[in-house]
Every structure is written in C-alpha cells, then in structure tokens.
C-alpha cells in the first residue's frame, strides 16, 4: 500500500500548484523509496533505492524521447504564423454569418475539431481565439437578436464559448497521429512489449470524435432554445419591474 504515496504526491503537488515537472520527479522518487522501505531499511539501502529509481526513470525518459520529437512541428507552424495563419483563421471565422449563438459556436466547433485533427492545435485556444474573437462574436450575435444582455446570460454565453473550444480540441486532437497523448499510449504499451502504431491509435479516436460532435451539437441547439426562451420575454419582464 505504501507505493500509493506517489499518487498522493501528484495530487498534493497539483493542489499547491507546484511546478508539474518537479511534482512528477518527486512522485517518482517517493514511489521508488516507498517500494524499497522496510522497518529494517538503513541509509545505504535507501540511497541505493533512490539511485535505482533515478536509473529506471532515466531509462524510460530516454526510451520515450519520441514523445517530445513532435515539437519539431513548431518550425513549420511558426513559419505559417509569421505569414498570418492565425489572422487568416480569424478572418475566416469573422466571415461566418451565423444568426444565433448556438450556430456560431457550432461552426467554431467544426473548425476547431477539424483543424485539431490535422495537428493545428495552436490555431484555437483561449487567449488566441476565445477571448478576442469567439466570445465577443457570440455575445454580439445574441445582442443583435435580443438587445442588451442580462449578466447571467452574458456569462453563460462566454462559458459556452470556452467550453466549445475545449471540447473541439480534446476530441479532435487524438485523430492526429503525432499528438502527445497518442505517443504516450504507444510508449506505455511498449513497456509491456505490446507494439502499436500511432496510426492504429488515432483511427480509434474517430468514433468518440463523432459522438462528441453529436452530443455537443445538441447542447448548442439547446443553448439557442434556452436563450430564446429566457431572453424573448426579458424586455417585458424588465418593463414590468
């Protein structure tokens, strides 16, 4: 049971917001030491255990270098950004003539999921896209239809803009063969002598991607219904107050 201390270290580290790399290393050493600990253990045994743990970690670190290999993609993406790729994505989204909040976010969901599946995960994101573009456009669509928004609905629309970005990213990116999670799975299975190709893994991310698209499309349709129901009556309710 003592070896479960490592998991506790991870949870504690995330709660106190320590540097995650430090948390991972601390959890590894804790686990290795906990596994070696017996009431009879002396300093030498524990030093050896720490050294062995570091060696196990180092071997795995070296064997899984290919997970970090994918960062070389940034050379090409950086060049495209230099030539205005993000600005182009913004222009494309801004040209979307969707009349409602739900439809606008739905088009963004399609774009976000589709581009993530092609490995272009940096095209979206909260600082780059949601705050400057998607959330204001969604609020704008609602204002054009219903007039000034009550705070509750304004924050609801903003929350949905952020949620749509996350959902499009999470359930699109695994279709791309060189995303970290796919390579992590490959590396994990290799530790058990099971060899799988990134391609095999990414293909099986497609059914969930379709389910995510279907479920979230329904959610956005319901959001439109909710806004119409709440806000169409709002002006009269306010006038009555």
């Amino acid at each position: 049971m003592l070896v479960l201390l490592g998991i506790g270290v991870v949870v504690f580290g995330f709660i106190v917001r320590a540097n995650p790399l430090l948390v991972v290393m601390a959890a590894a050493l804790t686990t290795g030491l906990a596994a070696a600990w017996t009431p009879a253990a002396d300093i030498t045994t524990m030093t050896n255990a720490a050294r062995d743990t570091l060696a196990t970690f180092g071997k795995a670190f070296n064997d899984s270098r290919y997970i970090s290999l994918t960062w070389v993609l940034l050379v090409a993406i950086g060049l495209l950004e230099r030539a205005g790729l993000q600005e182009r994505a913004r222009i494309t989204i801004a040209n979307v003539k969707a009349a409602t909040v739900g439809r606008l976010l739905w088009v963004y969901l399609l774009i976000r999921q589709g581009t993530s599946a092609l490995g272009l995960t940096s095209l979206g994101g909260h600082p780059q896209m949601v705050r400057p573009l998607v959330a204001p456009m969604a609020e704008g669509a609602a204002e054009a239809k219903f007039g000034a928004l009550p705070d509750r609905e304004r924050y609801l629309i903003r929350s949905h803009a952020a949620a749509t970005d996350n959902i499009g990213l999470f359930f699109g990116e695994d279709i791309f063969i060189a995303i970290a999670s796919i390579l992590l799975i490959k590396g994990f299975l290799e530790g058990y002598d099971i060899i799988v190709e990134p391609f095999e893994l990414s293909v099986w991310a497609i059914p969930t991607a379709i389910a995510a698209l279907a479920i979230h499309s329904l959610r956005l349709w319901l959001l439109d219904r909710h806004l119409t129901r709440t806000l169409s009556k709002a002006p009269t309710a306010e006038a009555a107050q």
Partner: protein
Amino acid sequence: MITLAYAYIVVGFFFASISILSLIDRANPRRARTALFWALLATSFWAGQFLGDLGNGLLALALVALAAIGLGQGKPPTTTPEQRRESAERRGNLLFLPALIIPAVALGGTLAVQYTDWGPVIIQEQHKTLVSLVIGVLIAVTVLMIWLRPPVLAPLQEGRRLMDSVGWAALLPQMLASLGAVFLAAGVGDQVGRIFAEYIPMLDTKTVAVAAYCIGMALFTIIMGNAFAAFPVMTAAVGLPFVIIACGGDPARVCAIGMLAGFCGTLMTPMAANFNVVPANLLELPDRKAALNGVIRAQIPTALPLLIANIVLMRLLAFP
C-alpha cells in the same frame, strides 16, 4: 534507410539551435538557464543512448531543476501584426494548405511502408509514422521557405518563439511516461488493481471491466487534473489486466478510447487549470474562483453523456 535515429538528429539540431539562439538573445532575462535547458534536451536527443540509465536520470533531474527555478522567454525577430494581417489578406485561404503537408506525408509514408515493397526500403518500418512525420516537417519547411522567402534563420527563430511560449511544459508528457515506468516497476498499478478487484464484482466480465476502466480514467483524471497522469496508473490497474488480458480486448482500441474517457474527466475538474480556470479568468467570469466555475458547468452536460458514449463504444468496438 531513414531510421528514427536520423529523426532524433534532426530534432536534436532543432533544440540545439533554440539553445544557441536563446543564449545570444539579450531580451531573455534568464537566457543562460533557458539555453542550458534546451542544450540538455539536445544532448538527450543526440547522445541519450550513450549516457547510460543513471546518466539519463541525472539529465532528467537537471531538466526538472532548471524548470523549477524558472525559464525565461526571448524575443525572436518576427513579423508585426500589421504585416501578418496584410499577408493573410493577400494570400487568403491558400495559407492553410502547407499545414496539410505534414499530416499528408505522415499518413502517406505510413501507408507506403505498410502496403508497398519500396516503402520499407526508404523508411524504418518499426517507426514509420514518426519518421514520416519528421520528413513531412522538412518538406513543409522547404515549401514554405520557397513560397514565403523569409530570412534564412526564420524557421528556427519562429520555432523558438513558440517553444519559449510552451516552455518546460513541453517535457511534461515525456516525464509522465517515465513516471509511468517507475510506477510499473514499483507495482503501483497492481495495488490499485487489487483495490478495484476487491470492491468491484465481476471485474472479469467485459461490460463491468470496460465501465470500471472508463469511469476510473475519468475519476482519476478529475483527481490528478491530467489524463496523461491518470492513464499509466489506470491502464496498468484495470485496462491491461482486466479489459485487455482477461477479456481479450484489442490494446490499441482499448487505450485510444480509454484516454478519451480520461479527457471527459478533464472537462469536469478545476485541477485542469489551463483549460478550465485560465479561460474563466480571461473571460472575467464572476464565479472564476469557484470550484465549479461557469466553464466547467457548461462542460459537464457534454462530458457525462460522452463518458457513457465512450463506455458503449469500447464495449462494442474493442472486442473484434
């Protein structure tokens, strides 16, 4: 034949250039530290196989130490927002096209090795996708250099600009995979698996095993804040012994869908700060400090049905 070893040399060159360019960038307040960090990573890619296990462990420890005391961000030369807007207007949607080269080459190379006689002669069969990916990057960069005619150093400087903004987080997935290996050696998965086996009846039947694995992935991700951290533990505890070995599930399908079940957990936890807390701050939501802020509440009604969908999909697809 092009092997993974060549790909590592290319990637090592990328990290080494980031290191050198960081070192001479006076705008980076911590340029020595930043340069050392990327130099160590370049060393790992170029010479990791000669360092020995303990040597690699010490290298990882040094990377962690540098990350913990903090890296800096440089100011690589790049285009202005006005220049970018002008270029985006002028070049139009054609800009999206070069981005397709990388996945196209990665996929094409993989299929060529699998289905042709000449494919395995050119590309190392064992690592076909990764090698093809790096070839795809080199082709895309060549095309972009000819089309856009940027300064010669631009690809490396632009790469550094993005790498600096990712920072030490770039190594988190690789470090978590290594933590998974330590957990494996210490038998953490076995322990968690024993707890599961003790409290969950009929864990050796397909439906129960699949449900326990998917729900376990989501719950563990909620606790750890990261599906990458939950995956090695839950898969070693339940996915591998029960879903794959006892019930005969296909490893690739079980793990691919299991990871996505974990992502459903990411949507529901304030521990995933990047995705759920940062946007609440950016969008100035009034409840941004609450455990279940507006973003998380907007995500839960999608995450729960999707978790059920993952259980159903794994049950239907993973036992061919």
